[in-house]
């Protein structure tokens, strides 16, 4: 084998990215910079948006083979392997394990009617689904787009990776971006749909929940939800296992690892590989813009759904329920609950809605997992 200088230089040049960069990749690099900016400076859900944006950056630098599958006994690219955790549906349930271990379902147990709000705030999922169908998306795609309205990242990633893999990056980015934008999206709708009098309502203090109730809760939820809807088992099952580890009080070391190192490792891998699917040619399509629009629709109608049922409960309870806690039913824990708190205090400085909003807030996580399970049962496989 002999090497000539010219040939070597040519080889390197051909292997460099300059000859290969497409305009789509260039645009995607700019998009990734914008996302990095939003993650770091605007603090838009940075734990996921930052890895997603970096994955997008890496995937759109030409000729890296990071996503190449193995072939001819040659190993595949790094991101190909890390992506298997999404492909095989492993990462989102592990994220849910950690979230379960971090979540206190006490406020929900103390006022189980919060679950109604957690159901109503899935309204936007179905509105966006209908709109997507009307725009010509397939049912599988429409379901994945609709689930953005669940305001729950891992659920959206889980469903989309099963039903409409090629939309994964657009949907994940939309979901996390809008979750970060909750403090901008929700307040106008909240003020529009509620009266000053409604917003001023101070709610009764929640009763204390016993340790036993907290331990029994994840078991009941697992059994009931999985019975009614077996397809939610990976999400609800892991969420509730995490919560049981937490509430049992006897396996602290497992609970701590689930809510720290394990979820952190998975978050890095999940983020970077979701982002790496946003390759220019596939991402830069009218579909992506539609998804962004439909995602906003979904968030708005989920908020509206929660608020309207909140108003109904205000009316039924004779004014004891502040309808502002309804919008927290979209999930986006704990941001949506904080928005309820802030709006409540604007109406009445002595109003502390945070704990009351946490009930619908965590109910919303269950609600969107259930909605995802329904879609999977209908359109999966």
């Amino acid at each position, binding site marked *: 084998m002999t090497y000539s200088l010219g040939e070597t230089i040519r080889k390197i040049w051909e292997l460099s990215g300059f000859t290969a960069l497409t305009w789509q990749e260039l645009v995607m690099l700019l998009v990734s910079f914008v996302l990095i900016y939003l993650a770091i400076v605007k603090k838009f859900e940075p734990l996921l948006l930052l890895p997603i944006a970096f994955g997008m950056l890496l995937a759109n630098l030409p000729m890296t083979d990071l996503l190449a599958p193995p072939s001819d006994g040659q190993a595949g690219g790094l991101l190909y392997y890390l992506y298997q955790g999404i492909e095989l549906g492993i990462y989102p349930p592990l994220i849910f394990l950690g979230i379960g271990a971090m979540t206190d379902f006490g406020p929900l147990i103390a006022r*189980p009617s919060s*679950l*109604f709000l957690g159901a109503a705030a*899935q309204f936007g999922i179905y509105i966006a*689904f209908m709109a997507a*169908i009307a725009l010509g998306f397939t049912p599988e795609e429409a379901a994945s787009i609709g689930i953005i309205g669940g305001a729950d990242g891992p659920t959206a990633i889980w469903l989309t990776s099963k039903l409409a893999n090629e939309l994964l990056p657009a949907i994940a980015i939309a979901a996390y971006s809008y979750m970060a934008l909750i403090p901008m999206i929700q307040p106008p709708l909240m003020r529009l749909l509620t009266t000053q009098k409604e917003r001023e309502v101070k709610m009764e203090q929640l009763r204390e929940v*016993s340790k036993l*109730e907290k331990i029994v809760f994840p078991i009941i939820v697992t059994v009931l939800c999985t019975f009614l809807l077996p397809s939610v088992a990976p999400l609800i099952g892991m969420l509730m296992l995490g919560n049981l580890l937490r509430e049992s009080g006897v396996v602290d070391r497992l609970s701590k690892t689930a809510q720290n190192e394990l979820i952190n490792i998975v978050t890095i891998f999940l983020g970077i590989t979701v982002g790496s699917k946003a390759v220019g040619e596939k991402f830069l399509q009218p579909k992506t813009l539609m998804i962004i629009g439909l995602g906003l629709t979904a968030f708005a109608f989920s908020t509206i759904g929660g608020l309207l049922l909140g108003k109904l409960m205000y009316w039924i309870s004779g004014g004891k329920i502040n309808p502002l806690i309804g919008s927290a039913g979209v999930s986006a824990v704990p941001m949506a609950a904080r928005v309820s708190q802030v709006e409540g205090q604007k109406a009445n400085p002595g109003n502390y809605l945070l704990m009351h909003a946490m009930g619908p807030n965590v109910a919303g996580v269950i609600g969107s997992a259930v909605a995802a399970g*329904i879609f999977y049962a209908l359109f999966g496989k």
Partner: protein
Amino acid sequence: MTFFDSLIILVFGLGLVFVVLIALCGVISLESKLLEAFKPKKPAEKKPVEEAEEVPEATCGELKLIGVEEKTAAMIMAIVSDESGIPLSELQFKSIKALD
């Protein structure tokens, strides 16, 4: 899929979400009541602070200091704040007591 089909999915899907979550609400309420009913009478759980009578108490806002000077307490709070990463303003100490 037609518009009408998708409307059916909306009605049916959202309905099913409600069914599941209402069922959950019912079962949890039931469970809470059951647990309440079978719960043994609560013994007074809070143990009185032992041998605290002879200890001089200093008050520091809402914080009880028992046998500890304010400066020392502040140091402890600063250390805890620093190590736990929780800003001092968000930490809630109920009391700091010297162990004798």
